[in-house]
């Protein structure tokens, strides 16, 4: 073995773990990297069962892996993506990484000693960097997905995402034959409010209004910003009577208390249109929006700051008499 002077020191300096066990899974070798990370001395551990030396190894799993390497004389692998680590070891970047233990890629290889006895050699690569990047990526994707759904100013759902949810809920209600209602509401005289207090004043009212409305909704309701000062709420499993109650409460929550903006007290109100799903077919959600919109139009026409429901059969915007 004329290359001993090379392989010996390199093996000791390697920043990967090298571990060898015999057919009885007794430790034959641990390189310096593993000894230092695990605080296990080869001189003490040699000849002992691997599962005694490293007590928290996934024993059943590892036995099966090693058995396949010995029996089939072919390599076996473990990736941090499926199993974060095989041997629980600290890593060297506790400051820059959120994970506590070293993520590992392991390769298990068949190895025969000079007398032909079969061994398994396990190579352990530190994959903590990849693990950390992957986690960052996932958090970022989650944030991105969230911001893709939400209206930046009011934190209500944005129109695109809200409409997707409406469509899904309508399909679900049709399939399970459950009631579903839609509220569309609009801040009264928003233009006038913007002219009087400036756009910041208008924004302030929108933010306060959505916060009050959100407090009155269930987790299963979908609240979205439909347009500038127009909002929609999908009330799942709710018939018209229940939806009217919610709408009245929302209407009152807005008008009963003024919004404070730069020492101004801004009095505002909303008009609400309510409709219950009764159409069938693929365009049912559009029909429902149209009906709630008609009701909203009538609420405006009747003098604002009120709730009006859609009556079956109405086919055009009409002024209710009386």
């Amino acid at each position, binding site marked *: 073995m004329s290359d001993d002077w090379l392989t010996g020191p390199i093996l000791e300096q390697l920043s990967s773990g090298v571990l060898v066990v015999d057919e009885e899974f007794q430790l034959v070798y641990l390189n310096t990297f593993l000894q230092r990370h695990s605080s296990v001395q080869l001189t003490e551990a040699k000849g002992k069962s691997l599962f005694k030396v490293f007590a928290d190894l996934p024993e059943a799993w590892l036995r099966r892996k090693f058995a396949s390497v010995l029996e089939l004389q*072919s*390599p076996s*692998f473990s990736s941090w993506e499926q199993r974060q680590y095989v041997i629980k070891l600290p890593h060297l970047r506790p400051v820059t990484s959120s994970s506590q233990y070293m993520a590992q890629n392991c390769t298990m290889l068949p190895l025969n000693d000079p007398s032909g006895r079969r061994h398994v050699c396990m190579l352990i690569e530190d994959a903590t960097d990849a693990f950390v990047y992957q986690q960052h990526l996932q958090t970022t994707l989650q944030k991105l997905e969230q911001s893709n759904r939400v209206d930046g100013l009011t934190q209500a759902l944005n129109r695109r995402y809200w409409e997707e949810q409406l469509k899904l809920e309508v399909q679900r209600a049709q399939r399970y034959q459950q009631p579903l209602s839609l509220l569309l509401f609009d801040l009264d005289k928003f233009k006038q409010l913007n002219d009087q207090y400036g756009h910041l004043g208008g924004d302030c009212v929108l933010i306060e209004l959505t916060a009050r409305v959100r407090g009155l909704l269930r987790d299963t309701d979908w609240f979205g910003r439909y347009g500038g000062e127009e909002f929609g709420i999908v009330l799942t499993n709710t018939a018209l009577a229940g939806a009217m109650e919610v709408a009245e409460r929302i209407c009152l929550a807005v008008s009963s208390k003024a919004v404070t903006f730069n020492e101004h007290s801004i009095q505002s109100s909303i008009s609400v249109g309510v409709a219950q799903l009764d159409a069938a077919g693929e365009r049912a959600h559009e029909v429902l929006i149209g009906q709630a919109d008609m009701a909203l139009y009538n609420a405006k026409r009747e003098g604002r700051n009120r709730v009006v429901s859609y009556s079956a059969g109405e086919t055009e915007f009409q002024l209710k008499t009386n």
Partner: protein
Amino acid sequence: MSTVFSEEQRDCLQELINVAMGLASDKLARFLNTFVHIQVPAIELVNSAQIPAQFEAQYSSAEAALVSQGFLGNDGLRGEAIVLYQLENAHRIAALLGYDTDNASELEMLTDISSILTTTFLNGLAEQIDNSLSYSAPRVLSSRQNNMTEALIETACHWELALRVDISYQLIHHSFNCDMLLLIPGEAVLNIQQILDRIVEEY
């Protein structure tokens, strides 16, 4: 560069593959403690560009998975082995290997099964031509998370030639089918042709 095998080379390759499959099934049987029957595999040399379409037809209807593993040997023998199967099929031998069939260990099971199939078969192939192979860690693409056809298109365009090996395993009480694809780059095809010629001459 000719990527077409002569009839002699082809016959020789088929013979090597038959023997390799025999060796693999013997090892698998001993490991799984059950009788393993592997049908004589049908091999076909195809242009890599045709692969995605072929497999889309076969695998797009059900949930499928693809496991890829690179291999590297002496004399310029190298390539990428891909095992494709329907997930439903994979569950059947998962039980034999003692895995839970929950989602968490499913990927691990897929990599293990594929790695065993690939490495036992390729080791058997290498043994016959006095070669030895080293392998990269297997990577899984599941149709649940990825578009497999896209992945195949991306992979296939890097390789000249594909050796398609249809494998059908039968274990007692269980049977399952999968496809193994050996993707081989152009210069490695030439090297394989030389290896095959050498073997043909020796007989």
